[in-house]
């Protein structure tokens, strides 16, 4: 289709060149006219045909019609070369535009390439290949090496590594084995996996992500809304002025000829098409959204991308957003024994406890527990554990436990959870357990500061002390601690009321218990969307993995996209209006008009195309 079009344009331009030579160098106007006409019909025949068909349907203001009128008009007033040239350039422009649109459609299709085509399901002792949406919850599916995981589920059998690249933008292999949750859209890289399906296809991760990206365009940005309404008035107004320009001056201005003014009016018609704007601005946003999703950042609409570019306040949840949400031993402070001994005794005493704190102590100890060495384990709810390890009585618990047992202990406000330990009635020191700051949280904060974010705030349900420690380590501006989920909404309202009127406030959370806060902020950003439906539902922007530095990337993409959209709007409107004014005074020819229409469209589309390229952001 495009090759045929290109062929027609090439042949037509050969005829056009010969015609020009005949007219200028050999003074053969009639032969030249014949060739101009052939060239014109060859390149513009389909436009004329479409214009004719559209008139029958009552579409007068479409671009085919405008182009036909302008070029036929040029022929009637004897400007043959310009009539052909306008059509030629218009078609070259259309070709370019089709190419650019096809290319971006292809990039988007590649993006959508995470859709699984089939699933192998076990039914009645047989393995059947079915469409993913035919598989029921609870059925067993089998995924071979190299295949895409069709539905969310839990691994029943087999070990493998899966590639989450399609979902997170990062090719991070993840090891899975029996009991592990597995997400659709990922690729099974090695072994054979038998998986019990936990979600129907419609509800599975892959189909949610696809749905989200495909429907992102229904939330239009202000720039897009502006262009839509601009286009609605622009064309009729320009066409109306063209009509007046053709008729009025020759009647009222002495000496003015129809020839001159019709020519000027035709220029108006060529410039009257809003194509450059209508194509390139949504394309810029689509490119931005597409590029972002390639980086594992899902944006639910152009409006959010636009808002993100204007954000000046960022409010973070602490646990799971800036910190890992996993407790880890930070400090072992013995008294009268070695660190190893304190850790060993505590790990043994805590061995039978299922509390997350016990797990982190056992993880820190990281050695096999010899059960023979522990006896008389007793858990005292709200206090701690007592046990005999190697015949020594070990008490491990909070300060209340120490007070209850009348043991004097180290008193301090700790930034985290503390387990005090006493051995044979003597205080033996404490172990500090706290959440860890994420590896790239520091990078996220410094990048955000570079992006001129006015204020970085942290909200946490944790104590003020813990909050302040994290906040000062990262260099945040404010921290509010001891907030219950309900308090967070109130705090956010306060921040919203206090921010500057044009800046936007973004809230970053994990989407697990802060859905109302996500919804209330100008922009709700959920981290770690991978595997969390709640996050995907509640947020406006979802960061698929749990790297906070992706927020800075998202801002950069938003700013770049907005800049491109603005460049295009100003460039296209500016050139068009400029050419209109020039041509009204007879200072522009149809060549400038063609540039103002087609040239601007091509340049704007090429510019919009840059939005898709987010490789270096």
């Amino acid at each position, binding site marked *: 289709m495009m090759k045929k079009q290109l062929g027609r344009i090439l042949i037509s331009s050969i005829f056009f060149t010969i015609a020009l030579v005949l007219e200028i160098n050999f003074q053969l106007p009639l032969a030249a006219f014949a060739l101009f006409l052939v060239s014109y019909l060859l390149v513009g025949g389909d436009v004329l045909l*479409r214009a004719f*068909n559209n008139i029958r*349907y*009552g*579409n007068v203001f*479409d*671009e085919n019609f405008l182009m036909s009128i302008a070029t036929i008009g040029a022929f009637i007033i004897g400007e043959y070369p310009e009539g052909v040239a306008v059509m030629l350039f218009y078609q070259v422009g259309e070709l370019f535009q*089709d190419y650019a*649109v096809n290319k*971006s*459609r292809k990039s*988007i299709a590649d993006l*959508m390439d995470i859709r699984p085509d089939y699933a192998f399901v076990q039914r009645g002792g047989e393995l059947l290949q079915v469409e993913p949406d035919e598989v029921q919850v609870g059925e067993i599916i089998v995924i071979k090496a190299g295949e895409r995981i069709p539905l969310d589920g839990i691994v029943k059998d087999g070990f493998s590594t899966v590639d989450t690249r399609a979902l997170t933008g990062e090719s991070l292999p993840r090891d899975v084995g029996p009991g592990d949750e597995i997400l659709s859209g990922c690729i099974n890289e090695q072994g054979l996996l038998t998986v019990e399906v936990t979600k129907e296809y419609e509800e599975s991760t892959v189909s949610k992500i696809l749905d989200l990206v*495909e*429907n992102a*365009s*229904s939330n239009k940005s202000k720039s897009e809304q502006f262009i*839509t309404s601009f*286009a609605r008035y622009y064309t009729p107004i320009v066409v109306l002025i063209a009509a007046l320009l053709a008729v009025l001056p020759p009647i009222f201005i002495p000496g003015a000829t129809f020839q001159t003014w019709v020519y000027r009016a035709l220029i108006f018609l060529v410039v009257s098409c*809003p*194509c450059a704007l*209508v*194509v390139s601005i*949504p*394309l810029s946003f*689509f490119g931005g959204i597409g590029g972002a999703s390639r980086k594992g950042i899902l944006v639910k609409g152009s409006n959010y991308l636009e808002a993100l570019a204007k954000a000046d306040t960022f409010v973070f949840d602490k646990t799971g957003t800036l910190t890992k949400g996993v407790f880890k031993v930070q400090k072992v402070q013995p008294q009268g024994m070695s660190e190893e001994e304190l850790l060993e005794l505590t790990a043994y005493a805590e061995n039978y406890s299922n509390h997350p704190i016990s797990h982190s102590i056992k993880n820190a100890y990281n050695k096999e527990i010899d059960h023979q060495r522990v006896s008389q384990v007793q858990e005292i709810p709200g206090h701690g554990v007592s046990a005999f390890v190697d015949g020594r009585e070990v008490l491990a618990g909070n300060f209340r436990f120490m007070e209850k047992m009348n043991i004097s202990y180290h008193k301090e406000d700790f930034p985290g959870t503390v387990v005090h330990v006493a051995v044979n009635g003597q205080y033996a020191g404490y172990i500090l357990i706290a959440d860890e700051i994420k590896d790239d949280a520091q990078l996220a904060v410094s990048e955000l500061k570079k992006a001129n974010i006015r204020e970085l705030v942290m909200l946490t349900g944790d104590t003020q002390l813990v909050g302040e420690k994290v906040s000062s380590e990262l260099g945040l501006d404010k921290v509010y601690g001891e907030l219950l989920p309900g308090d967070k909404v109130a705090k956010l309202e306060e921040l919203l009321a206090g921010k500057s009127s044009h800046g936007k406030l973004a809230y970053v959370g994990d989407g697990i218990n802060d859905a109302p806060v996500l919804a209330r902020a100008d922009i709700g950003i959920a981290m770690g969307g991978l595997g969390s439906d709640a996050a995907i539902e509640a947020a406006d922007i979802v960061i698929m993995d749990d790297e906070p530095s992706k927020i800075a990337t998202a801002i950069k993409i938003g700013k770049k996209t907005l800049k491109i959209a603005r460049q295009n709007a100003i460039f296209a409107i500016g050139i068009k209006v400029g050419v209109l004014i020039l041509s009204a005074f007879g200072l522009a020819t149809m060549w400038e008009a063609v540039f103002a229409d087609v040239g601007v469209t091509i340049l704007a589309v090429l510019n919009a195309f840059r939005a898709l390229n987010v490789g270096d952001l």
Partner: protein
Amino acid sequence: MKKSFRLDGLGCANCAAKMEKRISKLDGVSKVTVNFMTTKMVIEGEDEKMPMILEEAEKIIKKLEPQVVLGKG
């Protein structure tokens, strides 16, 4: 009820915008989006009026861009 279609051959962004506007005015339609880049159209509307909506929508599409072929989305 929500129905989605593929519009193969959708060539002009302005036409897509016009389609969206005109289809949204049909009786019984609650929301319609025509996505120029993914060439997907999603129509939401009342169940019992759906056959009529789809018929009218197809006419609008054919009028604006006769070369478009409606496919299953």
